[in-house]
């Protein structure tokens, strides 16, 4: 087990390093945008003196590296500065939004991941049959349609025609979990439809990839039934690529849901990011980007570790 701990610590270190590099890029990118916060806040009518005064007040007259380290120092302790629009601390505004996004992502993942893997196993079992083709066509169609289109189709049927679920997914902290789940069912379903195909096809491919291996033939020659060949003899060796794709899709569920949030008027972080960009609220933009980056890195790290753990050679060294 010492080996695994070693690997995990190394990966964790690498993840932190990546995050550091990304923070530089984020800061640099915002720095490169034409105009600065002072100009943005004061608008076009501002005099040079006003802008200069504002810069001094915000500390913008100091050099970029100094400001970067100050920002980074704050970010590490959870202080992303104040929003330029609301003047409130960024972390406060983001905190609630981010937990909403996480809620939706987890909700969608809980539906999507089991369905995708189960379907993947089924289509591998019934590969090259009508069932396989239909499942592939349906999931590919749902991944190919734009999310907002899927969202509107779902709204049309589930809320307008059949009235089963609300079309607007506004939630607040006072609601019960059940209420929340009902309110956010349609956005979650939309996201499920978007991510299932990718995970299902990877499950199918990595299982089928192993079906030609000698130990699978051996299992068949021992008289093991077809479903058991797949579940017991193939799947345990097929996890690594599946876990990676699942992690990638989970990251997408958190960082790629702007359109879904907009359609369902869901108070998530994606919508907040878009708003802040249009309002030039740079501290919020920077904070959102950093959180997204951290999400990606963390999930990929988790996937790496998961893939390592499924390898019996590492779990049971000689």
């Amino acid at each position, binding site marked *: 087990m010492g080996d695994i701990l070693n690997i995990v610590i190394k990966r964790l270190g690498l993840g932190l390093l990546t995050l550091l590099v990304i923070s530089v890029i984020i800061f640099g990118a915002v720095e490169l945008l034409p105009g600065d916060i002072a100009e943005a806040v004061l608008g076009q009518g501002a005099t040079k003196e006003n802008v200069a005064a504002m810069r001094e007040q915000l500390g913008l007259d100091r050099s970029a590296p100094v400001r970067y380290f100050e920002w980074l120092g704050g970010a590490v302790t959870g202080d992303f500065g104040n929003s330029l629009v609301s003047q409130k601390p960024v972390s406060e505004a983001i905190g609630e939004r981010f937990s909403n996004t996480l809620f939706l992502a987890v909700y969608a993942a809980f539906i999507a991941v089991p369905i995708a893997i189960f379907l993947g196993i089924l289509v591998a079992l019934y590969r090259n049959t009508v069932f396989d083709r239909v499942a592939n066509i349906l999931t590919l169609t749902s991944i190919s349609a734009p999310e907002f289109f899927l969202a509107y189709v779902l709204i049309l049927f589930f809320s307008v025609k059949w009235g089963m679920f609300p079309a607007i997914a506004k939630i607040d902290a006072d609601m019960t979990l059940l209420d929340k789940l009902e309110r956010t069912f349609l956005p979650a379903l939309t996201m499920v439809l978007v991510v299932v195909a990718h995970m299902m096809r990877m499950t199918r491919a990595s299982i089928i990839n192993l079906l030609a291996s*000698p130990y699978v033939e051996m*299992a068949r*020659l021992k*008289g*093991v039934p077809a479903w058991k060949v797949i579940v017991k003899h193939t799947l*345990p060796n097929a996890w690594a690529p599946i876990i990676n794709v699942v992690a990638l899709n989970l990251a997408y569920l958190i960082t790629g849901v702007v359109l879904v949030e907009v359609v369902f008027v869901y108070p998530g972080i994606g919508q907040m990011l878009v708003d802040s960009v249009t309002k030039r609220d740079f501290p919020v933009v920077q904070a959102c980007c950093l959180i997204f980056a951290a999400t990606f890195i963390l999930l990929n790290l988790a996937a790496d570790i998961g893939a390592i753990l499924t390898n*019996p050679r590492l779990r049971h060294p000689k």
Partner: protein
Amino acid sequence: MTKEKKHEVLLDIQNLHIEGYSDEHWVEIVHGVDLKLHRGEVMGLIGESGAGKSTIGLAAMGFTRDGTRISEGSVDFDGMELTTTPKADLRSLRGARIAYVAQSAAASFNPAHRLIDQHTEAPVQYRIKKRLESQEDAMELYNRLRLPHPHEIGFRYPHQVSGGQLQRAMTAMAMSCRPDLIIFDEPTTALDVTTQIEVLSAIRDIVDEFNTAAIYITHDLAVVAQMADVIKVLLKGNEVEQADTRTMLENPKEEYTKSLWAVRDFKSAQKKRPANTLPLYSVENIDAAYGTVKVLEDVSFDIFAGMTVAVVGESGSGKSTTARCITGLLPPTSGHILFKGEEMPPRFQDRTKDQLRQAQMIYQMADTALNPKVKIKEIIGRPAQFYGGLRGAELKTRVDELLDLIELDPANYYNRYPTELSGGQKQRIGIARALAAEPTFIICDEITSALDQLVAEGILRLLDKLQDELDLAYMFITHDLATVRSIADEVVVMQNGKVIEQGPKDVMFTPPHHEYTDLLLSSVPEMDPDWLTTLLEERGVDDN
């Protein structure tokens, strides 16, 4: 060998035709083979690759691999016609009444499960035994098969157990339901000679003890001579002849069988070291390690121009690592590599192009050593271009020349891909690629062990001819002593990273030997059907 036979037919295959799907056509690969096996009888199926041995063996279980089908004929197993039996009934025969032992146990055990869980799978599934009973039975079988720590070894994962042990564990697994018939598909081909003996005797004992019938598939005649009561020779999906083992060995009728028997006759004349010359390559006291694991210790030997040095030893003895040190792929931790008396930089990155050119390699698996996406002309042309700086028409002439050297028609092979070639042809391309650099020294790493004996002999003859024409030195890494006998001038015996003994071939093959050399030499199966029995008696192994 002399066991009582109940003369009850267990398996009766008649007029078996099997087709394989390739290039969108069904092509017949087995053309009407008959096979009759009695209870408790062991039949050896021998032939080169492509003879249809495995295909027929699997058909005896009513099993065909994806892309093959039984097109005609009948397979009667104990009164059941397997070609028409419904799938579910067929499945319940497998593992229970007919079992299979595959060539590579390392690949055929599922890496994700413990050995014993794979062992108990079939008996538990068929409700023949409860899990615990079956586990106890597994330990009992492990014990009979002389596996170390029979009570614990089953709880290990496949990667924690050695190849020879895995092969015995797989035989135990095949026995788990006490089947009537076991198909052994080249079960010792991937093993060292010393390990092979243990597995062979274990298999023979247990088959005898439970009076199990077996089909023993192999391309190694000497092995089949130890195992089988009757031998059937196959060639390209046809039966050549069948007879009981002794008759077959003493008096083969067909030309093809005789040619198989004669393969090991090739011998190149043994050369002596030239006087007053420096060796081409000298390996001087090298140590090497992978990470912190020491794999070579104080290895020294010389290789003279135009001569062949065979390096022999079991897997893990450091043969290939020595080769990696010579080529600079693995810099030794101490010691020197000399070329014509001059020291070479240990890392290949630090060697000049001319130094690199001198030593080339040919690999065991021609399949993986040739890039499948690249045409022959590029595979051979690339080193000619890199080392010789040839371009355009010059390059083409050189590639043609090289193809001529390896006895492949340039017009026919110039534009083809490796996947279109047979195993022996691929290995020839590997040789041409090595020659393209105009080396003085070629390292051949087990280059014939994946080939059929007839094909392997062709390769050996070719190498011998090239050595005479181009004054090449070879380092021949092998665990096959028959190959050593036919091609070596000098022999280096390695064990656990050390050189145990070395010298000219005639001296090395004449007693007295070092103890380990003796073990290696005596472990090479001979064509005498009593060889294994006699040997085990001599070694005092309890052959119960």
